[in-house]
């Protein structure tokens, strides 16, 4: 029943022959070598592979932090590879949320201020910011940590602040790069459940990891090696998406 045109029309993310080449001295590294990928809204995808396989570069391209050298990237039907830097910044601000392994909280700002940062950058009025930050703090169980600075928070709390920050603009997709990499097992489990709950509410979740256990939780797993996708499987359905790519 999954006709090819229908799936193309429904896709949130469409990558066509994406190439990204790095030149390190004389050697040329193909970080992404002709990647084709389609992701539908609300999917939960784990991108896996060894170090240097290109999974982080893929994440950066998807997050519009990096520009591909060739190929097209359509986000929600719009070609975003040709957008200007400022237009890309707008797309990042409103459609994309990032979660980093090392949290990347601004050390001088409190938890509440860190969460409000994307709204400050987007020019949302202070009153609405406060409202949304309070809701987010309650929702992520951080109400009593609002005025704490990052160095006064535990690792799990820091990542919860980072996730609250990533979702405060209600993005369409969350890009998480080793979100549990700096956390112990129990805290990592807690953070993953949080991310999965957000995915359950309809946000597309893309997790980059080399932890097989983490990858196994996702509905769809993409394996990468030397800048190419070697395996693309959807759990339960059994149909390999790369067959139609």
């Amino acid at each position: 029943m999954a006709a090819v045109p229908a799936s193309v029309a429904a896709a949130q993310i469409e990558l066509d022959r994406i190439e990204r080449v790095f030149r390190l001295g004389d050697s040329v590294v193909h970080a992404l070598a002709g990647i084709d990928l389609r992701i539908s809204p609300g999917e939960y995808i784990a991108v896996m592979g060894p170090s240097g396989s290109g999974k982080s570069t893929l994440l950066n391209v998807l997050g519009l932090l990096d520009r591909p050298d060739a190929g097209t990237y359509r986000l929600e039907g719009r070609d975003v590879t040709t957008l200007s830097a400022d237009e890309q910044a707008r797309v990042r601000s409103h459609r994309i949320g990032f979660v980093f392994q090392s949290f990347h909280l601004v050390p001088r700002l409190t938890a509440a201020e860190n969460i409000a940062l994307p709204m400050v950058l987007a020019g949302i009025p202070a009153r609405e910011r406060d409202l949304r930050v309070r809701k987010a703090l309650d929702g992520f169980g951080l109400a009593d940590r609002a005025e704490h600075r990052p160095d006064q928070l535990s690792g799990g709390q820091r990542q919860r602040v980072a996730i609250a920050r990533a979702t405060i603009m209600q993005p369409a997709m969350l890009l998480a790069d080793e979100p549990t990499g700096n956390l112990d097992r129990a805290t990592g489990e807690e953070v993953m459940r949080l991310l999965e709950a957000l995915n359950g509410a309809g946000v597309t979740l893309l997790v980059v990891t080399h932890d097989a256990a983490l990858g196994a939780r996702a509905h769809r797993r993409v394996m990468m090696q030397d800048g190419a996708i070697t395996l693309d499987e959807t759990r339960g359905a059994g149909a390999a998406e790369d067959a139609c790519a």
Partner: protein
Amino acid sequence: MRARDLVAFAVGAASGNRLRTALLMLAMAIGVAAVVTLTALGDGARRYVEREFSAIGSNLVIVLPGRTETGGINPGSFVSTTPRDLTVDDARALLRAPSVLRAAPLTVGTSELSVGGRLREGMVVGTTAEFIEVRQFKMAQGQFLPREDWGRGSPVMVIGAKLRAELFPNETALGQFVRVGDRRFRVIGVLAATGSGLGMNTDELALVPVSVAQAMFNTNTLFRILVEARNRDAIEVTKRQAAEIIKARHDGEEDVTVITQDALLATFDRLIGTLTLGVAGIAAISLAVAGILVMNVMLVSVAQRRSEIGLLKALGASGSTIRTAFLVEAALLSAAGAVIGYALGLAGAAVIRALYPVFPAYPPDWAVLAGLGTALATGMLFGVLPARRAARLDPVAALAKR
């Protein structure tokens, strides 16, 4: 980003690294303080000279023999080369001009003054009763030279305060006799001490009637004629009329120079104005140095905050937002430093005034505005490069550095 959020963000970033912020503001403060203090010094010098000049007498026009200005060659140059002398009659003729209030002829010579066994070399000035009014001196004791015919002088003398102290250390000077050459003069008055005057020190003068002085020095020429105009507006008219009268009396040849206090003052004003500008320029260099420091500190700040900048980009900040944030930070720090420097500069000027009370060292308004303005402009200008660098930072590379 909203303006208020921008300022709050910049203040937060600045207070995040106190040492850096303090150094930057200090550099700016020193620059502005230098401008304010040095221009206060220059302007103080200008005021000082102005005050000294007004002490000579107000509305003063001075006639001196000979032309000091080069006028080029005219037919008169071939007829006569020696200028005619300036005489007492010339001075008297000047009184005919309606704009002239008073005139005082002046002849000067040095001679030996003796009282009893004491001898002293001194400057003897021959003049008339009008001199004290024209120069606005005050008497300490006795009276000034009597009003009498300029051609016939009585053998009386008025001496300066210092001369009195030296010639008559222990006795009253009034009524005593002073011998000059083969003449004897009765002291009828002592001038009040004026402190340091411009040029000759009036406290060391001995004043006698002009006709007596001319006879004593065996001359009929004058050193100067001091003319007082009726009011300030009449100074230029007086100057022109005085020149015309003397020219008519000297067979149509313009062989005197007429100068006004204003012209002298204007010359000094220009001189010191240029000096003040020069000093301000030197101070401006320290502001430029401060600007380069701002640039360095901001560049270091950009390097230190790489990951923060990368994060801001990932969170949707455009390049221009980041550029503006860094520029606002540089501007805020420069402005704060400038205000501190302004206060320091005022304090510096106050210290100068406390140490030298005669020196009115107040910074001129233009220097204050220029100092503050330049500080802000320098801060912004030198903030542009770091801000651009921050805006251009590659977010992937910036985030990767942990």
